Protein backbone atom coordinates (compact mmCIF):
# COMPACT_ATOMS: atom_id res chain seq x y z
CA UNK A 1 0.00 0.00 0.00
CA UNK A 2 2.75 2.48 0.92
CA UNK A 3 4.65 1.76 -2.27
CA UNK A 4 1.54 2.11 -4.37
CA UNK A 5 0.63 5.48 -2.89
CA UNK A 6 4.19 6.70 -3.37
CA UNK A 7 4.16 5.50 -6.96
CA UNK A 8 0.98 7.41 -7.71
CA UNK A 9 2.60 10.59 -6.43
CA UNK A 10 5.41 10.40 -8.95
CA UNK A 11 3.21 11.85 -11.64
CA UNK A 12 2.33 14.97 -9.68
CA UNK A 13 1.58 16.07 -6.11
CA UNK A 14 -1.95 15.02 -5.20
CA UNK A 15 -4.43 15.06 -2.38
CA UNK A 16 -5.88 11.95 -0.76
CA UNK A 17 -9.18 12.05 -2.58
CA UNK A 18 -7.51 12.25 -5.95
CA UNK A 19 -5.17 9.36 -5.08
CA UNK A 20 -8.13 7.20 -4.18
CA UNK A 21 -9.86 8.08 -7.43
CA UNK A 22 -6.79 7.08 -9.43
CA UNK A 23 -6.33 3.85 -7.51
CA UNK A 24 -9.93 2.89 -8.16
CA UNK A 25 -9.47 3.72 -11.83
CA UNK A 26 -6.43 1.46 -12.04
CA UNK A 27 -7.89 -1.39 -10.00
CA UNK A 28 -11.53 -1.39 -11.05
CA UNK A 29 -13.79 -3.41 -8.78
CA UNK A 30 -10.77 -4.56 -6.76
CA UNK A 31 -10.20 -0.94 -5.79
CA UNK A 32 -13.74 -0.25 -4.61
CA UNK A 33 -12.97 -1.89 -1.28
CA UNK A 34 -10.38 0.74 -0.54
CA UNK A 35 -11.67 3.58 1.66
CA UNK A 36 -10.36 7.10 1.81
CA UNK A 37 -9.35 6.60 5.44
CA UNK A 38 -6.78 3.99 4.47
CA UNK A 39 -5.21 6.41 2.03
CA UNK A 40 -4.96 9.17 4.63
CA UNK A 41 -3.46 6.83 7.23
CA UNK A 42 -0.89 5.72 4.68
CA UNK A 43 -0.07 9.32 3.74
CA UNK A 44 0.44 10.22 7.38
CA UNK A 45 2.81 7.30 7.87
CA UNK A 46 4.75 8.19 4.75
CA UNK A 47 5.04 11.74 5.97
CA UNK A 48 6.46 10.59 9.29
CA UNK A 49 8.96 8.44 7.43
CA UNK A 50 10.10 11.48 5.45
CA UNK A 51 9.01 10.06 2.12
CA UNK A 52 6.33 12.67 1.38
CA UNK A 53 5.76 16.28 2.44
CA UNK A 54 2.60 18.31 2.60
CA UNK A 55 2.40 21.24 0.30
CA UNK A 56 -0.10 24.03 0.26
CA UNK A 57 -2.33 23.67 -2.71
CA UNK A 58 -2.46 26.65 -4.99
CA UNK A 59 -5.71 28.50 -4.59
CA UNK A 60 -8.33 26.10 -5.96
CA UNK A 61 -10.85 27.34 -8.50
CA UNK A 62 -13.63 26.31 -6.17
CA UNK A 63 -14.08 24.47 -2.91
CA UNK A 64 -11.75 24.44 0.09
CA UNK A 65 -7.99 24.38 -0.13
CA UNK A 66 -6.87 20.78 0.44
CA UNK A 67 -3.68 19.17 1.67
CA UNK A 68 -1.50 18.17 -1.25
CA UNK A 69 1.24 15.61 -0.82
CA UNK A 70 4.47 15.51 -2.80
CA UNK A 71 7.36 13.04 -2.91
CA UNK A 72 10.61 13.87 -1.18
CA UNK A 73 13.93 12.80 -2.69
CA UNK A 74 13.90 9.77 -0.40
CA UNK A 75 10.38 8.99 -1.60
CA UNK A 76 11.53 9.16 -5.21
CA UNK A 77 14.32 6.70 -4.49
CA UNK A 78 12.01 4.31 -2.76
CA UNK A 79 9.56 4.32 -5.67
CA UNK A 80 12.32 3.70 -8.18
CA UNK A 81 13.54 0.73 -6.16
CA UNK A 82 10.04 -0.69 -5.74
CA UNK A 83 9.20 -0.41 -9.38
CA UNK A 84 12.19 -2.26 -10.72
CA UNK A 85 12.99 -4.75 -7.98
CA UNK A 86 12.17 -8.37 -8.63
CA UNK A 87 8.85 -9.06 -7.05
CA UNK A 88 9.51 -12.73 -6.39
CA UNK A 89 7.61 -15.74 -7.58
CA UNK A 90 4.79 -15.29 -5.09
CA UNK A 91 3.96 -11.69 -5.92
CA UNK A 92 0.32 -11.06 -6.57
CA UNK A 93 -1.32 -9.86 -9.71
CA UNK A 94 -2.67 -6.52 -8.37
CA UNK A 95 0.73 -5.40 -7.11
CA UNK A 96 2.46 -6.07 -10.40
CA UNK A 97 -0.40 -4.45 -12.26
CA UNK A 98 0.00 -1.32 -10.17
CA UNK A 99 3.70 -1.27 -10.91
CA UNK A 100 2.93 -1.20 -14.61
CA UNK A 101 0.35 1.55 -14.17
CA UNK A 102 2.71 3.58 -12.01
CA UNK A 103 5.60 3.05 -14.38
CA UNK A 104 3.56 4.31 -17.31
CA UNK A 105 2.14 7.28 -15.41
CA UNK A 106 5.40 8.44 -13.95
CA UNK A 107 7.66 7.58 -16.86
CA UNK A 108 10.13 6.18 -14.32
CA UNK A 109 10.24 2.78 -16.01
CA UNK A 110 9.07 1.21 -19.23
CA UNK A 111 6.10 -1.09 -18.57
CA UNK A 112 7.26 -3.52 -21.26
CA UNK A 113 10.68 -3.74 -19.65
CA UNK A 114 9.02 -4.63 -16.35
CA UNK A 115 6.94 -7.28 -18.11
CA UNK A 116 10.07 -8.77 -19.65
CA UNK A 117 11.93 -8.85 -16.35
CA UNK A 118 8.94 -10.42 -14.64
CA UNK A 119 8.71 -13.06 -17.35
CA UNK A 120 12.33 -14.04 -16.85
CA UNK A 121 11.74 -14.37 -13.17
CA UNK A 122 8.62 -16.50 -13.64
CA UNK A 123 10.27 -18.65 -16.31
CA UNK A 124 13.12 -19.50 -13.99
CA UNK A 125 10.76 -20.35 -11.15
CA UNK A 126 8.62 -22.45 -13.48
CA UNK A 127 11.71 -24.26 -14.77
CA UNK A 128 12.61 -25.16 -11.24
CA UNK A 129 9.10 -26.24 -10.33
CA UNK A 130 8.67 -28.25 -13.51
CA UNK A 131 11.96 -30.09 -13.06
CA UNK A 132 10.82 -30.97 -9.58
CA UNK A 133 7.46 -32.15 -10.94
CA UNK A 134 9.23 -34.49 -13.35
CA UNK A 135 11.41 -35.82 -10.56
CA UNK A 136 8.59 -36.44 -8.10
CA UNK A 137 5.72 -37.38 -10.40
CA UNK A 138 2.24 -36.14 -9.63
CA UNK A 139 0.98 -39.16 -7.77
CA UNK A 140 2.88 -38.28 -4.61
CA UNK A 141 1.80 -35.58 -2.18
CA UNK A 142 4.92 -33.58 -2.94
CA UNK A 143 4.36 -33.92 -6.67
CA UNK A 144 0.77 -32.78 -6.35
CA UNK A 145 1.85 -29.58 -4.64
CA UNK A 146 4.55 -28.97 -7.26
CA UNK A 147 1.97 -29.44 -10.01
CA UNK A 148 -0.18 -26.75 -8.41
CA UNK A 149 2.80 -24.42 -8.17
CA UNK A 150 3.68 -25.01 -11.83
CA UNK A 151 0.12 -24.41 -12.99
CA UNK A 152 -0.05 -21.20 -11.04
CA UNK A 153 3.21 -19.93 -12.58
CA UNK A 154 1.93 -20.90 -16.01
CA UNK A 155 -1.21 -18.83 -15.41
CA UNK A 156 0.92 -15.85 -14.37
CA UNK A 157 2.95 -16.18 -17.57
CA UNK A 158 -0.21 -16.22 -19.65
CA UNK A 159 -1.43 -13.09 -18.00
CA UNK A 160 1.92 -11.44 -18.78
CA UNK A 161 1.24 -12.09 -22.46
CA UNK A 162 -1.94 -10.08 -22.13
CA UNK A 163 0.00 -7.36 -20.31
CA UNK A 164 2.53 -7.30 -23.11
CA UNK A 165 -0.16 -6.91 -25.75
CA UNK A 166 -1.96 -4.12 -23.95
CA UNK A 167 1.07 -2.14 -22.92
CA UNK A 168 2.82 -2.44 -26.26
CA UNK A 169 -0.33 -1.12 -27.94
CA UNK A 170 -0.15 1.87 -25.62
CA UNK A 171 3.57 2.44 -25.89
CA UNK A 172 4.14 5.88 -27.41
CA UNK A 173 7.15 4.88 -29.46
CA UNK A 174 7.45 1.09 -29.17
CA UNK A 175 6.23 -1.55 -31.55
CA UNK A 176 2.53 -0.89 -31.48
CA UNK A 177 -0.21 -3.44 -31.27
CA UNK A 178 1.93 -6.47 -31.86
CA UNK A 179 -0.04 -9.62 -31.32
CA UNK A 180 0.56 -13.08 -32.58
Amino acid at each position, binding site marked *: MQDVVLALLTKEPSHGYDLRRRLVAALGPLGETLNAGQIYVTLTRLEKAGLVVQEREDAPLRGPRRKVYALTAAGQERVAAWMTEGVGPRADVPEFHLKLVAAAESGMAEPLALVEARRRELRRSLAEAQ*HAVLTHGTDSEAGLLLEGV*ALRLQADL*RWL*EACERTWSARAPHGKGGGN*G
Partner: protein
Amino acid sequence: MTTRGGRWGRGQTRRGDTGDESAGPVLRAVGLSRVYGQGVSTVVAVDGVDLDIPVGQTLAVTGPSGCGKSTLLQLLGGLDRPDEGEVWLGGQRIDLLGERALARLRRRAVGFVHQDFHLMDELTAAENVELPALLAGDSPRTARRRAAALLDRVGLADRGRHLPSQLSGGQRQRVAVARALVNEPLVVLADEPTGNLDTAATHDVLRLFADLRATGQTLVLVTHDERVAATADRVVSLRDGASAEDIPLAAGGSQLGALLGWEE
Protein backbone atom coordinates in the same frame (compact mmCIF):
# COMPACT_ATOMS: atom_id res chain seq x y z
CA MET B 1 27.96 -48.49 -30.11
CA THR B 2 30.27 -47.78 -33.00
CA THR B 3 29.87 -44.99 -35.46
CA ARG B 4 28.74 -46.39 -38.77
CA GLY B 5 29.97 -45.18 -42.12
CA GLY B 6 28.15 -42.15 -43.38
CA ARG B 7 26.26 -41.76 -40.16
CA TRP B 8 26.61 -39.36 -37.33
CA GLY B 9 28.18 -40.56 -34.13
CA ARG B 10 26.63 -39.99 -30.77
CA GLY B 11 27.40 -37.88 -27.76
CA GLN B 12 31.06 -37.15 -27.32
CA THR B 13 32.17 -38.80 -30.54
CA ARG B 14 29.93 -36.48 -32.51
CA ARG B 15 31.72 -33.47 -31.16
CA GLY B 16 35.09 -34.92 -32.04
CA ASP B 17 34.59 -36.31 -35.50
CA THR B 18 32.55 -33.69 -37.30
CA GLY B 19 35.62 -31.79 -38.35
CA ASP B 20 35.28 -28.17 -39.30
CA GLU B 21 31.95 -27.51 -37.60
CA SER B 22 32.91 -29.10 -34.32
CA ALA B 23 33.37 -25.76 -32.59
CA GLY B 24 30.30 -24.12 -34.10
CA PRO B 25 26.58 -24.57 -33.53
CA VAL B 26 25.02 -27.76 -34.85
CA LEU B 27 22.05 -25.82 -36.16
CA ARG B 28 22.15 -22.23 -37.26
CA ALA B 29 19.70 -19.76 -38.76
CA VAL B 30 20.89 -16.48 -40.25
CA GLY B 31 18.39 -13.74 -41.10
CA LEU B 32 15.72 -16.33 -41.74
CA SER B 33 12.47 -15.09 -43.29
CA ARG B 34 9.46 -16.83 -44.77
CA VAL B 35 6.59 -15.00 -46.41
CA TYR B 36 3.31 -16.58 -47.48
CA GLY B 37 0.89 -15.17 -50.02
CA GLN B 38 1.20 -12.20 -52.30
CA GLY B 39 0.14 -8.57 -52.41
CA VAL B 40 -2.26 -7.46 -49.70
CA SER B 41 -2.66 -10.97 -48.32
CA THR B 42 1.05 -11.33 -47.58
CA VAL B 43 1.82 -12.90 -44.24
CA VAL B 44 5.33 -12.73 -42.85
CA ALA B 45 5.45 -15.99 -40.90
CA VAL B 46 9.12 -15.79 -39.97
CA ASP B 47 10.80 -12.41 -39.92
CA GLY B 48 14.57 -12.21 -39.75
CA VAL B 49 15.36 -14.85 -37.15
CA ASP B 50 18.97 -15.47 -36.12
CA LEU B 51 19.60 -18.55 -34.05
CA ASP B 52 22.65 -20.55 -33.00
CA ILE B 53 21.96 -23.89 -31.37
CA PRO B 54 25.00 -25.57 -29.85
CA VAL B 55 25.42 -29.34 -29.73
CA GLY B 56 23.51 -30.92 -26.88
CA GLN B 57 21.22 -27.99 -26.18
CA THR B 58 17.51 -28.37 -25.61
CA LEU B 59 15.89 -25.27 -27.03
CA ALA B 60 12.22 -24.42 -26.62
CA VAL B 61 10.59 -22.07 -29.11
CA THR B 62 7.44 -20.60 -27.70
CA GLY B 63 4.88 -17.92 -28.40
CA PRO B 64 1.18 -17.48 -29.13
CA SER B 65 -0.41 -19.42 -31.97
CA GLY B 66 0.36 -17.84 -35.32
CA CYS B 67 3.67 -16.41 -34.13
CA GLY B 68 5.60 -18.43 -36.69
CA LYS B 69 7.10 -21.07 -34.45
CA SER B 70 6.01 -24.09 -36.49
CA THR B 71 7.16 -22.45 -39.71
CA LEU B 72 10.53 -21.76 -38.10
CA LEU B 73 10.84 -25.43 -37.15
CA GLN B 74 10.06 -26.53 -40.70
CA LEU B 75 12.69 -24.17 -42.05
CA LEU B 76 15.25 -25.47 -39.57
CA GLY B 77 14.49 -29.06 -40.54
CA GLY B 78 14.58 -28.49 -44.29
CA LEU B 79 10.86 -29.19 -44.74
CA ASP B 80 10.33 -25.69 -46.06
CA ARG B 81 12.64 -23.18 -47.71
CA PRO B 82 13.22 -19.64 -46.54
CA ASP B 83 12.56 -16.61 -48.74
CA GLU B 84 15.58 -14.96 -47.19
CA GLY B 85 18.42 -16.08 -44.99
CA GLU B 86 20.37 -19.26 -44.44
CA VAL B 87 20.02 -22.54 -42.57
CA TRP B 88 23.14 -24.42 -41.55
CA LEU B 89 23.00 -27.95 -40.20
CA GLY B 90 26.11 -29.72 -39.03
CA GLY B 91 28.28 -27.14 -40.74
CA GLN B 92 26.49 -27.50 -44.08
CA ARG B 93 24.23 -24.92 -45.65
CA ILE B 94 20.98 -26.75 -46.41
CA ASP B 95 18.57 -24.15 -47.79
CA LEU B 96 20.29 -24.21 -51.20
CA LEU B 97 20.36 -28.00 -51.58
CA GLY B 98 18.38 -29.67 -54.33
CA GLU B 99 15.24 -31.61 -53.41
CA ARG B 100 16.85 -35.03 -53.44
CA ALA B 101 19.95 -34.02 -51.55
CA LEU B 102 17.79 -32.23 -49.02
CA ALA B 103 15.52 -35.26 -48.57
CA ARG B 104 18.56 -37.46 -48.04
CA LEU B 105 20.02 -35.08 -45.50
CA ARG B 106 16.71 -34.78 -43.67
CA ARG B 107 16.40 -38.53 -43.39
CA ARG B 108 19.82 -38.92 -41.84
CA ALA B 109 20.39 -35.78 -39.86
CA VAL B 110 16.97 -34.70 -38.62
CA GLY B 111 14.46 -36.57 -36.46
CA PHE B 112 10.93 -35.18 -36.42
CA VAL B 113 8.33 -35.57 -33.70
CA HIS B 114 4.82 -34.30 -34.44
CA GLN B 115 1.87 -33.35 -32.29
CA ASP B 116 -0.32 -36.12 -33.72
CA PHE B 117 2.47 -38.72 -33.82
CA HIS B 118 2.30 -39.44 -37.60
CA LEU B 119 2.76 -43.18 -37.11
CA MET B 120 1.76 -45.58 -39.87
CA ASP B 121 -1.42 -47.23 -38.61
CA GLU B 122 -0.90 -50.52 -40.42
CA LEU B 123 2.66 -51.03 -39.15
CA THR B 124 3.58 -52.26 -35.69
CA ALA B 125 5.45 -50.04 -33.26
CA ALA B 126 8.72 -51.79 -34.08
CA GLU B 127 8.12 -51.52 -37.83
CA ASN B 128 7.38 -47.83 -37.50
CA VAL B 129 10.73 -47.33 -35.79
CA GLU B 130 12.57 -49.50 -38.34
CA LEU B 131 11.18 -47.72 -41.37
CA PRO B 132 13.46 -44.64 -41.48
CA ALA B 133 16.49 -46.88 -40.94
CA LEU B 134 15.49 -49.05 -43.89
CA LEU B 135 14.88 -45.96 -46.01
CA ALA B 136 18.35 -44.74 -45.11
CA GLY B 137 19.84 -47.99 -46.37
CA ASP B 138 20.25 -50.10 -43.24
CA SER B 139 19.87 -53.86 -43.55
CA PRO B 140 16.61 -55.26 -42.13
CA ARG B 141 18.59 -56.99 -39.43
CA THR B 142 20.36 -53.81 -38.35
CA ALA B 143 17.11 -51.86 -38.48
CA ARG B 144 15.41 -54.47 -36.32
CA ARG B 145 18.18 -54.46 -33.78
CA ARG B 146 18.21 -50.68 -33.56
CA ALA B 147 14.44 -50.45 -33.27
CA ALA B 148 14.41 -52.97 -30.45
CA ALA B 149 17.11 -51.07 -28.58
CA LEU B 150 15.26 -47.77 -28.98
CA LEU B 151 11.89 -49.17 -27.93
CA ASP B 152 13.63 -50.44 -24.85
CA ARG B 153 15.11 -47.02 -24.27
CA VAL B 154 11.69 -45.34 -24.42
CA GLY B 155 10.24 -47.91 -22.04
CA LEU B 156 8.23 -49.87 -24.62
CA ALA B 157 10.32 -53.02 -25.04
CA ASP B 158 7.20 -55.17 -24.66
CA ARG B 159 5.06 -53.18 -27.10
CA GLY B 160 7.02 -53.68 -30.30
CA ARG B 161 4.38 -55.92 -31.88
CA HIS B 162 1.48 -53.62 -31.05
CA LEU B 163 -0.23 -51.52 -33.66
CA PRO B 164 -0.47 -47.79 -32.91
CA SER B 165 -4.22 -48.22 -32.34
CA GLN B 166 -3.41 -50.58 -29.48
CA LEU B 167 -1.24 -47.99 -27.73
CA SER B 168 -2.11 -44.98 -25.60
CA GLY B 169 -1.32 -41.48 -26.83
CA GLY B 170 1.72 -41.25 -24.61
CA GLN B 171 3.00 -44.62 -25.82
CA ARG B 172 2.46 -43.62 -29.44
CA GLN B 173 4.46 -40.46 -28.90
CA ARG B 174 7.27 -42.45 -27.32
CA VAL B 175 7.30 -44.72 -30.38
CA ALA B 176 7.51 -41.57 -32.50
CA VAL B 177 10.49 -40.38 -30.46
CA ALA B 178 12.19 -43.75 -30.93
CA ARG B 179 11.56 -43.45 -34.66
CA ALA B 180 13.03 -39.95 -34.69
CA LEU B 181 16.20 -41.32 -33.11
CA VAL B 182 16.72 -44.39 -35.24
CA ASN B 183 19.12 -42.76 -37.69
CA GLU B 184 21.07 -41.04 -34.93
CA PRO B 185 20.12 -37.56 -36.11
CA LEU B 186 22.13 -34.44 -35.44
CA VAL B 187 18.97 -32.76 -34.17
CA VAL B 188 15.53 -33.84 -33.07
CA LEU B 189 12.82 -31.32 -33.95
CA ALA B 190 9.53 -31.64 -32.09
CA ASP B 191 6.41 -29.65 -32.93
CA GLU B 192 4.00 -29.46 -29.97
CA PRO B 193 5.08 -32.97 -28.93
CA THR B 194 2.79 -32.97 -25.89
CA GLY B 195 -0.09 -31.08 -27.49
CA ASN B 196 -2.35 -34.15 -27.61
CA LEU B 197 -1.26 -35.76 -24.36
CA ASP B 198 -2.68 -35.75 -20.85
CA THR B 199 -0.58 -34.68 -17.89
CA ALA B 200 0.91 -38.06 -17.04
CA ALA B 201 1.83 -38.82 -20.67
CA THR B 202 3.25 -35.31 -21.03
CA HIS B 203 5.50 -35.96 -18.08
CA ASP B 204 6.63 -39.28 -19.58
CA VAL B 205 7.61 -37.59 -22.83
CA LEU B 206 9.35 -34.74 -21.02
CA ARG B 207 11.31 -37.24 -18.92
CA LEU B 208 12.30 -38.99 -22.12
CA PHE B 209 13.55 -35.68 -23.55
CA ALA B 210 15.54 -35.14 -20.36
CA ASP B 211 17.15 -38.56 -20.90
CA LEU B 212 18.00 -37.59 -24.48
CA ARG B 213 19.63 -34.43 -23.28
CA ALA B 214 21.76 -36.46 -20.91
CA THR B 215 23.13 -38.37 -23.91
CA GLY B 216 24.09 -35.14 -25.68
CA GLN B 217 21.19 -35.13 -28.16
CA THR B 218 20.38 -31.69 -29.56
CA LEU B 219 16.67 -31.00 -29.36
CA VAL B 220 14.46 -28.15 -30.56
CA LEU B 221 10.90 -28.20 -29.39
CA VAL B 222 8.10 -25.88 -30.36
CA THR B 223 5.41 -25.46 -27.76
CA HIS B 224 2.80 -23.00 -26.59
CA ASP B 225 2.85 -24.63 -23.15
CA GLU B 226 5.11 -22.70 -20.79
CA ARG B 227 5.43 -25.74 -18.55
CA VAL B 228 6.92 -27.73 -21.41
CA ALA B 229 9.21 -24.85 -22.38
CA ALA B 230 10.35 -24.69 -18.78
CA THR B 231 12.11 -28.04 -19.14
CA ALA B 232 14.50 -26.69 -21.81
CA ASP B 233 17.99 -25.21 -21.41
CA ARG B 234 16.91 -22.10 -23.24
CA VAL B 235 13.66 -20.47 -24.32
CA VAL B 236 13.22 -18.32 -27.42
CA SER B 237 9.91 -16.45 -27.65
CA LEU B 238 8.58 -15.44 -31.03
CA ARG B 239 6.27 -12.52 -31.66
CA ASP B 240 5.03 -11.88 -35.17
CA GLY B 241 7.70 -14.13 -36.59
CA ALA B 242 10.60 -12.41 -34.88
CA SER B 243 12.57 -13.41 -31.84
CA ALA B 244 11.32 -11.28 -28.97
CA GLU B 245 13.24 -12.92 -26.19
CA ASP B 246 16.02 -15.43 -25.77
CA ILE B 247 16.71 -16.53 -22.23
CA PRO B 248 18.79 -19.30 -20.69
CA LEU B 249 17.13 -21.34 -17.97
CA ALA B 250 20.07 -21.97 -15.71
CA ALA B 251 19.69 -24.79 -13.25
CA GLY B 252 20.14 -23.96 -9.60
CA GLY B 253 19.37 -20.80 -7.66
CA SER B 254 16.37 -22.12 -5.80
CA GLN B 255 13.30 -19.94 -5.67
CA LEU B 256 10.98 -22.66 -4.46
CA GLY B 257 11.37 -21.47 -0.88
CA ALA B 258 10.08 -18.09 -1.94
CA LEU B 259 7.06 -19.75 -3.48
CA LEU B 260 6.14 -21.14 -0.11
CA GLY B 261 6.63 -17.74 1.47
CA TRP B 262 9.15 -18.96 4.02
CA GLU B 263 11.70 -16.35 3.17
CA GLU B 264 10.32 -13.31 4.92
